[in-house]
């Protein structure tokens, strides 16, 4: 009777514990405390929220381990951190300092334009972004234990998160109606590993937890994503770029629990102060969009 660490059940299991919850981007230990007190299930430790990465331009890299460690010391909830797409050494460093989940994230500047990190090599679990089922299942095929929609981070515009969630969930619904002999073509057309296509069809859902991310700024946005059928939400810039972060954070937490109760949603949406300013995605030039990063 020896213990086995880093099994897929253990990696996926932490994501299952986060379901029905809100994961918040934080840039300081003080933010992390505010997030924990507001009821966040985990925090994403990073140096700049996506809205600032977008505004600042330049190369966005893994955060300083010192800053991530200060956040790990400040809270008892799980701490996630981001590495660049394909940057397996950043991932090794994040694993070495003991983060609870790594987000191989398109929000940072990709380090490899063809390959993602081989996530099976790690004991720490990974979450990855996806815009459609094929992309999601490729990431699971590389060992990701959790998926999130990409949305368009740092905009405060929920439209891309909605598009990606509808695409993934719609493809799963269509997949369930296909006869066996059409599954291989579905896998081919979508660039998805065949075995995972079969498993997804059998389960009627993705084989890992599926959160929404990218542009969620209000309790109504969060509840919208939950009603569409995701398992929980990430909120990046939407909280700490707003007028009253503690209040908004607590309201979004409540909206995810009571996503199907419009009376409670109305109550928690009152008097939240200014939301983040936001940028309409349709007005952003293609060269500045980040959701297409990932292969």
């Amino acid at each position, binding site marked *: *009777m020896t213990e*086995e660490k880093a099994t897929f059940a253990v990696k996926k*299991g932490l994501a*299952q514990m986060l379901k*029905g*919850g809100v994961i918040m981007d934080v840039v300081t230990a003080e933010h992390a405390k505010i997030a924990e007190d507001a009821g966040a299930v985990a925090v994403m430790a990073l140096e700049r929220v996506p809205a600032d990465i977008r505004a600042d331009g330049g190369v966005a890299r893994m955060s300083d381990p010192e800053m991530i460690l200060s956040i790990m010391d400040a809270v*008892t909830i799980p701490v996630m951190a981001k590495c660049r797409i394909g940057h397996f050494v950043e991932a090794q460093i994040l694993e070495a300092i003991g983060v609870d989940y790594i987000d191989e994230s398109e929000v940072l500047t990709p380090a490899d334009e063809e390959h993602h990190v081989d996530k099976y090599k790690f004991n720490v679990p990974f979450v990855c972004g996806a815009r459609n089922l094929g992309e999601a299942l490729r990431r699971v095929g590389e060992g990701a234990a959790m998926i999130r929609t990409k949305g368009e981070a740092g905009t405060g515009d929920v439209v891309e998160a909605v598009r990606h969630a509808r695409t993934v969930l719609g493809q799963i619904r269509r997949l369930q109606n296909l006869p066996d002999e059409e599954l291989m073509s579905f896998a081919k057309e979508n660039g998805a590993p065949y075995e995972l296509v079969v498993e997804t069809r059998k389960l009627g859902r993705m084989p890992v937890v599926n959160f929404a991310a990218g542009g969620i700024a209000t309790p109504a946005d969060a509840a919208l994503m939950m009603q569409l059928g995701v398992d929980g939400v990430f909120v990046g810039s939407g909280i700490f770029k707003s007028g009253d972060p503690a209040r908004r954070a*607590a309201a979004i937490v409540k909206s995810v*629990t009571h996503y199907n109760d419009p009376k409670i949603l109305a109550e928690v949406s009152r008097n939240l102060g200014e939301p983040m300013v936001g940028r309409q995605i349709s007005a952003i030039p293609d060269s500045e969009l980040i959701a297409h990063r990932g292969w």
Partner: protein
Amino acid sequence: MKIGVLALQGDFIEHQQMLEGIGVQVIQVRLPAHLQKLDGLIIPGGESTTIGKLAVDFDLLEPLRQFGRERGIWGTCAGAIFLSKDIHRQQPLLQLMDITVSRNAFGRQVDSFEITLNVPALARVGDTSPFRAVFIRAPLIDAVQEGAEVIASLPNGRIVAARQGKLLATSFHPELTGDDRFHRFFMEMLK
């Protein structure tokens, strides 16, 4: 029998699916009114700070305490923390069970693990073969006080499951394994 799953946050759907798999009717509980007419309640795994805060915000603490004094509650992981008397830090607790618990007792996620446990109490459901237990950033039960009994321990003797009357606490997650014996055991406890 009608069983509630506390659906504030966490893996309550996994519990719901296990219960439905053994033919039990399940209600998701988010507000005090949802506790009516239930025979028992499961508090799932999740983040105990989040579940505690939401329970306070939606006035569930007292109704849950009242429920636990009359009927059965099973807490897994965060749920076990929530049922306990003391966890060595300030956090909303139901304090229904005479057990003390340490959160994140094994370390961070890279220290999470699976292990096979012997659980003699599962004789109640007619199968004491070893139980595969999944521990995710799990708590440990430091001690059980008078009134509570140990149900399962790790090979090193640390306590990972305890029972007190119709209350059950497990620091691992039977809802993640597909093995429904603990769910059947809880249903037997309610009889």
